[in-house]
């Protein structure tokens, strides 16, 4: 047990994080680029039009992964913020900080692609149903979180206040995911190209699953790069403060 927890907490040490992330980043980046290129080609060229929705089903291959990443990035920020608040590890806060713009980006992608999918299939770009509304509120929490970091000069204080704000927003991240189960919303789960079993047809399932993996790899590459930048920025700040004294 001690070995497991030790190996996890070594990531909390900035020096260890730089060493370990530096070792895996090139591989992750290559994997991300390759899977994304293959995934895009598969989605656009290798999938049939849906018998009801026609070619608008192609939007699914970017909308669903973006929505999954949008929500899970927020969940990751909640966990990182909690660890940061409880154990006081600086890298933990920097993980949350670096994840925020990426998560906000995926949220915007999910909303824009959802609108462009919604108009031809539902007849409306936007509806105020539970899932869409909670996703929009989650986006505001992402933006508020980023703004708070930028507004406060002292990084330790910024980290703690932003972490608290992040925890409040977790309600909307949870609602974004489970709203479909709580209320009957216009937003369906997987109703496109359904088979008798109620699952997504294989012709859509495999490229979609592949695209979700591709999005995760892109996310990890972006996140590691971001955290490495933040660790260097922190070191830069402390060096400047030292030389100013």
């Amino acid at each position: 047990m001690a070995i497991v927890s030790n190996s996890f907490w070594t990531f909390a040490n900035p020096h260890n994080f730089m060493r370990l992330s530096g070792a895996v980043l090139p591989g992750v980046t290559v994997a991300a680029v390759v899977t994304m290129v293959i995934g895009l080609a598969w989605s656009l060229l290798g999938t049939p039009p849906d018998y009801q929705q026609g070619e608008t089903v192609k939007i699914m291959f970017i909308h669903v992964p973006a929505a999954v990443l949008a929500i899970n990035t927020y969940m990751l920020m909640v966990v990182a913020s909690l660890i940061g608040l409880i154990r006081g590890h600086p890298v933990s806060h920097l993980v949350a900080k670096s994840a925020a713009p990426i998560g906000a980006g995926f949220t915007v992608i999910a909303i824009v692609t959802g609108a462009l999918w919604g108009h031809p299939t539902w007849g409306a770009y936007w509806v105020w149903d539970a899932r869409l509304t909670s996703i929009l509120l989650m986006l505001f929490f992402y933006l508020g979180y980023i703004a708070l970091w930028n507004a406060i000069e002292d990084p330790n204080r910024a980290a703690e206040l932003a972490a608290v704000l992040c925890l409040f927003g977790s309600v909307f991240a949870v609602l974004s995911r489970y709203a479909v189960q709580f209320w009957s919303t216009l937003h369906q789960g997987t109703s496109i190209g359904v088979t008798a079993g109620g699952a997504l047809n294989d012709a859509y399932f495999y490229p979609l699953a592949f695209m979700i993996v591709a999005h995760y790899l892109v996310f990890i590459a972006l996140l590691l790069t971001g955290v490495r930048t933040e660790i260097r920025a922190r070191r830069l700040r402390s060096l400047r403060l030292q030389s100013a004294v």
Partner: protein
Amino acid sequence: MERMRGAMSESWAEFFAMGGFASYVWPAYGAFAAILGGLILHGVRRNRAIRRELDAVEARRRSQR
């Protein structure tokens, strides 16, 4: 050959038409590419800028010692 090229460009035209939904599918993929591209560009640029500054400050500290 000429006919083959004609068939090729016809199938590409069909691909870009997206069954009449081109005005939804391509803007969606465009927004995806623009936002993801922006995130990547921003991440790489900021990383490079901070790294350069840090290297400069550390080099200055070494030379002062």
